[in-house]
């Protein structure tokens, strides 16, 4: 099977320095304290797919969830709204489009990140990077060009602020709905 969906968050996945997409609201109503103590919390869905180390994909990849590539991909990876991670075992000969693109393996192609591109120490890119923010860790291998747009103002230099604002609003909404749920249960 080419796609291996993970339901539980991997323990050794790198975290980008800016927050990723805001947490999704839970569809289920908030449990009462008694119910929460009795039943184990169901595993949280992370909406992240993984291409395993033994998988080789030739063609275009697109979708609407985060992706971790540990196998080989040739073609095009088009996940502009999501985060793409090329794992340490990943070998990609393709142009990669993503929101935050993290490279720990090898990429032979161009990287386009809407928010940020991160080349980890173990990673290598032979190609060009286009992103408003680029992080190259020392020891990483890079051959190509980096195109960085200048920050328009203080706010735009930190593209995560809008996400943070949305996240706060979402959190407030959740808190309000939780409070309402607790009141309803108490009543």
């Amino acid at each position, binding site marked *: 099977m080419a796609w291996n969906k993970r339901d539980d968050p991997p323990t050794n996945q790198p975290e980008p320095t800016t927050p990723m997409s805001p947490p999704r609201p839970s569809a289920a109503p908030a449990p009462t304290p008694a119910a929460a103590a009795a039943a184990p919390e169901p595993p949280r869905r992370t909406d992240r797919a993984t291409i395993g180390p033994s998988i080789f994909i030739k063609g275009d990849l697109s979708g609407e969830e985060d992706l971790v590539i540990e196998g080989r991909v040739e073609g095009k990876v088009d996940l502009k709204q999501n985060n793409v991670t090329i794992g340490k075992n990943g070998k990609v*000969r393709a142009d990669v489009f993503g929101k935050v693109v993290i490279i720990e393996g090898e990429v032979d192609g161009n990287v386009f990140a809407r928010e940020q591109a991160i080349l980890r120490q173990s990673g290598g890119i032979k190609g060009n990077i286009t992103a408003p923010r680029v992080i190259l860790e020392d020891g990483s*291998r890079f051959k*190509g060009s980096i*195109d960085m747009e*200048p920050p328009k103002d203080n706010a735009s230099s930190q593209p995560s602020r809008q996400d943070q604002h949305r996240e706060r609003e979402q959190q407030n909404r959740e808190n309000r709905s939780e409070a309402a749920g607790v009141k309803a249960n108490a009543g």
Partner: protein
Amino acid sequence: MSWFSSRSAGSRKEQQGRVQTLPEPDVHRSLALSALFEGIRGRKVNVLDLGSAVGSNVEFLSQYGCKLFIEDLYAALSSRTTVEEGDLAGPEFFSEFLPLPEDTRFDVILAWDLFNYLHRKELVTFSEQLRRFSHKGTLLLALISYHKTIPAQPYRFKIKDEQNLVYERRTATERPSPRLAPAEVTGLLKGFRVDRSFLLKHGIQEYLLVRD
């Protein structure tokens, strides 16, 4: 993907496999760097960095909104496998080293201390390639050592700020320095003239050259 197997820290003529203790990086004031940033402030520029990829430099240069090309010259010279010891890199090598579209023009070239690691003939050949991808007014930063010996591998330079450079050694071993004289620098780098040069206390002469 053979490129990925060649580490940029590879040495050109140096023994490998030794455990070396490296000194702490030094921070030195760079007058040429200050002059260079003064020259590019406020405009989007194309920068060619001939050193290895250094994250802090990328981050620093990002504030200028430049397009940065990183082509690690020393790593490319080190990874030549078909040459005999002592063979010089020729026009073909340097042409392949910069596989850029013909209309590419750089506004800034960061050569760091790499000219100390090229034979004089290689420097002439390489400067021809640099001329191809530059225009009138292109700035070239080069650091020439006046010590008798230099590290066996180029320093890794990190831009601390507009006035200061961090010199990070990659090896404890040394090799003879070519000690290029000022007249040689201009003679070998045809098409470029010295705009400013600064002899620093730590035995490095900084050159800011301009393409005629």
